[in-house]
């Protein structure tokens, strides 16, 4: 997993609340056997059926920060929702409130989900819509979001922040205990089954 320290990019205003994971990526994409390439499934229904949908607007192409309404990521626990956002190119999602499972999945996978006050999100939406080239900085070192002279702190627990700064996924964390795993392996009962490959 890539390290996340400070990211600066343009942003997309998604003025919708209660965006569930079925909207983020429809169930039909869950049949795939791959881990990448889910960008075509991202918000597929909206991108297909709504010509004006923000991601269809040329001024937001290349944006790396999604700014969404409250209760983003509700519904099914599918990890594909996080993969689709990352595959599309998003590095961070800002919302006044995230669904628990989605937030957990995102922070484990390295997609930074930032909670900002609803009024701040409103101002950010207004500013991006007025000037889509507005550069937004998500700074995990300082735990701040900055744009056009605005500076807003956000909360993230020390442990999660450290993992993201170091780029450690769950597997990476476990591998730090490789010596303990090795010691355990040496102590296992001799009769335990082993599969001949």
């Amino acid at each position, binding site marked *: *997993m890539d390290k996340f320290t400070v990211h600066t990019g343009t942003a997309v205003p998604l003025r919708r609340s209660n965006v569930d994971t079925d909207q983020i990526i429809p169930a039909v994409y869950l*049949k*795939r*056997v*791959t*881990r*990448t390439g889910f960008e075509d499934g991202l918000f597929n229904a909206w991108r297909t059926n709504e010509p004006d949908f923000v991601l269809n607007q040329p001024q937001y192409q290349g944006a790396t920060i999604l700014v969404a309404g409250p209760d983003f990521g509700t519904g099914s626990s599918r*990890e594909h929702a996080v993969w689709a956002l990352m595959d599309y190119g998003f590095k961070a999602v800002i919302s006044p409130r995230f669904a628990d499972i989605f937030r957990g999945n995102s922070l*484990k996978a390295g997609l930074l989900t930032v909670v900002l006050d609803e009024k701040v999100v409103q101002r950010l939406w207004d500013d991006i819509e007025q000037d889509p080239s507005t550069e937004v900085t998500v700074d995990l070192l300082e735990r701040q979001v900055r744009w056009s002279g605005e500076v807003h702190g956000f909360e993230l627990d020390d*442990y999660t922040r450290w993992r993201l700064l170091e780029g450690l996924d*769950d*597997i990476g*964390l*476990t*591998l730090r*205990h490789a010596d*303990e*795993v090795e010691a*355990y*392996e040496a102590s*296992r*009962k*001799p*009769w*335990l*089954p*082993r*599969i*001949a*490959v």
Partner: protein
Amino acid sequence: MGKTLAEKLWDSHVVHSAAGEPDLLFIDMHLIHEVTSPQAFEGLRLAGRPVHRPDLTLATEDHNTPTDYTLPLAGTASIKDDVSRMQIETLRKNCAEFGVRLYPMGDAEQGIVHVIGPQLGITQPGMTIVCGDSHTSTHGAFGALAFGIGTSQVEHVLATQTLPMDRPKTMAVTVNGELPEGVTPKDVILAVIAKTGTGGGQGYMVEYRGSTFEQMSMEGRMTVCNMSIEWGARAGMIAPDETTFDYLKGRDHAPKGAEWDAAVEYWTSLRTDDGAEFDAEVTLDASTLTPFVTWGTNPGQGAPLGATVPDPSDFADESDRVAAEKALAYMGLQAGTPLRDIKVDTVFVGSCTNGRIEDLRAAAKIIDGRKVADGVRMLVVPGSVRVRKQAEQEGLDAIFTAAGAEWRQAGCSMCLGMNPDQLAPGERSASTSNRNFEGRQGKGGRTHLVSPLVAAATAVSGHLASPADL
């Protein structure tokens, strides 16, 4: 204070423990199938990681495999569905690339993942066993700590052979007494679920205790532990005893010689200490049990076969009432109808719940010399190729086919709508499987969960019935 069996199993697998973090558990065996593993292997590939312990990893094909092919078999041409075929082909490619042993369709050891582990002697007391499948709790019947995991966790186990987990609480389900004639382990677990509700075991590692379980065969214990997840339990287990040791002795992967003696000595210590305390307890009296069937759309919506379809307005709890109304509408049932009057189109004997040799013997004994009722389709699907061959040696296949039932190849089959064995919309089944969810056996299909004995009697009479009714 002593320890419970679950605590002993947990503690003996902790690799790393620190305050405020989940325990890191070592995994003794990781079972794999085609549905939940593709993205896990892909994750390894993207990160450039190998499989840490291929020798503690075993793969098979079961969920997507058709059951009507003719052996011997090569390739995947018999799989008509593109997604199913792709999942199988991906598993084969991944196992070859990462050096994981695979028992593919057509192999003498292929079968449902939870059937092949025990029959090969891979499932042993004292082990931790995981698989990307919620019915992994089956293996707890041997006194192992076994539970289902998600795809990210599959990747984690492949990469490290460990899993970070918060320790669940412990619960005892105690059932004492002899089971009345015609009452099977399936009826016991259905009765437990009806008593506790589908969420009653949430957050618990459950130990099934008491003379009823002690008198059960290993097959019966597996049926009970298999359905632990259907009432929300993280894992289900039964302390190992002579029955366990007798089942294991001589199997392919069982310890041999001096190691066998050492293993049995260790396994004998795997029981809940006197004075150990459980966080919760449930008790049932075996003598009060009768054949049990489900009438609704979750495994907790069950009743004795002699009862009637319940009236939703009799439920005191509002959400139970709404759920019952919804279930009756989906199932096409009227409150007050005797359960015995419910006619079925299909009878399915098989699955990781009831697809082992003892289950097939039980069903065959009832079917022997009788005929499947007109208009009823009966599928008998062995849980593994070994089970199939043994049944054929015993002549069970001939009994089933003489009665008009279909004798199939091994696989998950009609337990879930992922392969060609499915119910048509509106069709009704009596099924020895584990889930009666809406659409589980095919879109619009209606499922009544039953024991192998009730399944066989139902096939003969055309409506829900027990052998005593014939």
